[in-house]
């Protein structure tokens, strides 16, 4: 097992071999109104353990569907999705996910919401309280253990959802536009938190976002997808150490490049204002 050393060795480095995601020739289509509509086609992607990959693309390029397939909520697909060699069929504690709407259970306190993730793990009961407390500290929510979701702000709820996803130490953490619903200021804070957590936890992360800047700031690689049917147009390497400086010229150059690519579109002469298609959840 090769322990890959990162530029800045994290204090409790996880066994680096976990969390290798490989997707080959993935295709998926929905039956909408009787006709078969392809949503994802010919997706090939390999994510190395501990790597942070961002996926960016116009709405309707199937990025959320891709995540639902990887996490196992939807098991109807062609092709292969393997995590550390195991084929992905249904949900498993090895693959965590954070949704755009935080989906904390309104009837549970913050503590209970995070603790429920450990319910079916083999962590002994005694240690669970400690693990939950650690993760609440990790996302800076100390003092709100007994709060109900309706008593938390959007940003705090989103951080709680991240804590819940991390508490099972999943090999792979998926983030489906986790910061989409937050205001700009909170989003920057949570991005920093996310990066700090990623560097300490060292788990593999795949984040879907519509914000190119965010994708570049956080991702080792940025997958640019094209819509209908969803396919990978280009993979952009971001060769900068973490934590990164938001003002780095490389980031700006890559941002303009990706944006122009996204805006150009593959030769379709559709007008700019196109009614956003309701993305299939």
């Amino acid at each position, binding site marked *: 097992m090769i322990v890959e050393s990162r530029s800045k060795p994290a204090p409790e480095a996880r066994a680096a071999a976990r969390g290798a995601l490989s997707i080959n020739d993935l295709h998926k289509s929905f039956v909408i109104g009787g006709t078969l509509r392809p949503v994802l086609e010919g997706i090939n992607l390999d994510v190395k353990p501990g790597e942070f990959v961002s996926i960016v693309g116009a709405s309707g390029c199937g990025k959320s569907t891709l995540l639902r397939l990887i996490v196992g909520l939807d098991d109807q697909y062609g092709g292969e999705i393997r995590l550390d060699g195991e084929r992905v069929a249904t949900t498993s504690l090895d693959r965590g996910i954070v949704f755009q709407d935080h989906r904390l259970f309104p009837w549970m*306190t913050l503590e209970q919401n995070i603790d429920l993730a450990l319910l079916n793990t083999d962590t002994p009961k005694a240690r669970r309280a400690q693990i939950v407390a650690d993760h609440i500290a990790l996302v*800076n929510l100390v*003092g*709100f253990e*007994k*709060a*109900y979701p*309706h*008593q*938390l*702000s*959007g*940003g*705090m709820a989103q951080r709680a959802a991240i804590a819940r996803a991390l508490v099972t130490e999943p090999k792979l953490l998926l983030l489906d536009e986790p910061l989409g619903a937050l205001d700009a200021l*909170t989003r920057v*804070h949570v991005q*920093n*938190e996310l990066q700090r957590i990623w560097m300490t936890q060292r788990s593999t992360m795949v984040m879907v976002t519509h914000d190119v800047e965010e994708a570049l700031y956080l991702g080792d690689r940025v997958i640019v997808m094209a819509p209908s049917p969803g396919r990978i147009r280009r993979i952009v390497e971001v060769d900068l150490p973490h934590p990164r400086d938001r003002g780095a010229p490389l980031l700006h150059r890559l941002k303009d490049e990706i944006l122009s690519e996204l805006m150009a579109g593959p030769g379709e002469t559709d007008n700019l204002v196109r009614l956003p298609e309701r993305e299939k959840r």
Partner: protein
Amino acid sequence: MPSEEPVTPKPKSAAGGAARGWIIGAIALLVIAGLVAFQFRGKESVAGNPKTVTIAGIAYPFEGRQVYNGLIGVIIEQGWLKSELAKRGVALAFTPVPTAVGGPLINEGFSGKRIDFAAYGDFPAIIAVSGGVPLKLVAPLGQGQNCYLVVRNGLAAKSIKDLRGKRIALHRGRPWELPFSKLLDANGLKLSDFTIVNINPSATPAALASGNVDATFLLSDGLLLEEKGIGHIIWSTKQAPTEWKMRAELFGRGDFVEGNPELTQLVVDAFVRAAAWSADEANKTAVIHDAARGAMPEAIVAKDYAESGIPWRDRFSPLFNDAIKDHYRSVADYTYARGLVRNKVEADKLIDERFVTQALRDLQLDKYWKQSSAGPAALAAAGGHS
């Protein structure tokens, strides 16, 4: 440290709130458990005795329990029947039935063979027999109940003739429909000469008081209407031959009576003993007091029982006579004619006199009651029937 967003009020100390919540919850559970237990108290299961004689009777709510006002009440107090049956290893059980829905409940009990005997009205009994439940009239219970024709205030009507074309409240399908039709026949009238309004007795006082109906025909609650000043009585079965009254008897299930003549004899003996006790002038006040428990006020019961024509002793006479046979023939004819029953009942087959005659001999009471003298003479007083 990223600055915190404004947060809604800090969650109150959950520990304090939760503890108080648990205490309230515990108290609430205790109260509910207590109330539920209260519900299941006193539901002792009937002793699993192979042989049980079950007698049903109209029961009244009195001081939180069901009491039987008539002869059944006396039987229970005397305890003679219970001990006699116990000697033969047979248990005695009583089924209380409310006045509001007495007849149907007993008929359903009879057809389900859950009831062996019932002291109840003539109409429901005939209806049961015509419905295919074999019953036997094993003992007459006195002279029957009086019915009253009450007219609302401000209406100067002296007799049923004056009410022609008026609105009369009559609860259809109930036993006192028969004496009303006899009164009409005696006066050459028909039901169609009136607008008959079908109201439950509980809604009648208000209807009479508000003038929605001009008159009503019902049992002793008529006396109450008069006492409350809502109307005045212009006719009652006291002015008619005794067999016009609404009668109630002791009926036994046909197959039980055939199969267990000895037990039936004991039951009839008990009823005759109770009748003898009630017929004794000395017990008059006790009888009236018991009859008022959970039913009409005592004064009304006394007024209802007060009848110059019938001596107190005869009021409880268990003797069979032609008047009773005529009564049940007319009930059978009326219910069939009115389409209340689908097949006609043979009244004579209903009556089984063996047990009363035997009981009178066993209890040396055969000279206690004389055949009541009610005959054609009394008929004349009923308004010139030809």
